[in-house]
């Protein structure tokens, strides 16, 4: 099993940049290209915004939890909130003509575009977990020097 970095934060929009930068930085260290790492950062950013705004309703007492993990050929991020959940299957397609002028509703669309797989899991009584997965690029994987999560743990240790 791959090692993990876990982050637990109050539901403050001000922490979204931190989560994005950590995701992008870890993705770069894992060997993703600059462009792919930015995409991963943007997807995680949207998941964090969703968790803080729509999941926890901006209630700072409710934490969000973000974890990063390298597992096999996947870079996996989980974002958890403590909210009542929402029906993610019912979100409107922002590309539909009637939605093009909407000023919100593009977050999940961005997530799905920027990573290979997005899954939502309702945790009864505990909130929602969003799982984002990005497969390692073949060239990047061949060239990467080691496990990004492990290398950070080494430095901390």
């Amino acid at each position, binding site marked *: 099993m791959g090692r993990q970095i876990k982050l637990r934060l109050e539901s403050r*929009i*001000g922490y*979204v*940049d931190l989560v994005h930068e950590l995701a992008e930085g870890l993705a770069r260290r894992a060997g993703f290209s600059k462009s792919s790492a*930015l995409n991963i950062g*943007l997807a995680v*950013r*949207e998941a964090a*915004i969703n968790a803080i705004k729509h999941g926890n309703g901006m209630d700072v007492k409710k934490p969000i939890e973000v974890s990063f993990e390298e597992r096999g050929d996947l870079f996996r991020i989980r974002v958890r909130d403590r909210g009542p959940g929402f029906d993610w299957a019912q979100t409107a397609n*922002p*590309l539909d003509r009637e939605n*093009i*002028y*909407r*000023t*919100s509703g*593009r*977050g999940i*669309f*961005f997530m799905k*575009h920027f990573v290979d797989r997005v899954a939502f899991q309702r945790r009864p009584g505990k909130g929602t977990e969003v799982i984002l997965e990005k497969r390692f690029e073949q060239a990047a994987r061949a060239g990467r020097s080691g496990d990004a999560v492990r290398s950070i743990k080494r430095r901390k240790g």
Partner: protein
Amino acid sequence: MKANTRHHGKVTVVDLSGKITIGEGDIKLKQAVNALLDEGRKNIILNLGGVSYMDSAGIGELVACFKRARDKEASLKLLNPNGKVQDLLILTKLQEIFDIYRDEREALASF
């Protein structure tokens, strides 16, 4: 995110730089465009050349600015979206509703 405003006759150019994201960039963008609309400016160009990326909140605010300008019978156009910003405009199909220019002189002459 920074927003600097220049006036070229009847046209106002807002040079944006940094990132347009939730909680800061989106708010500054809103404030900059609202100030111009409140002054009665009718022809606005948002120069996105210095913007590295936007998130869904930034994109949403861009659409909101477009709609507010339209409601006040003003016109808001985009200049020089690069890299990720251009990708996002294409991805969201917003390049179909915005007038987008690569050349500032051409953008200025378009009003």
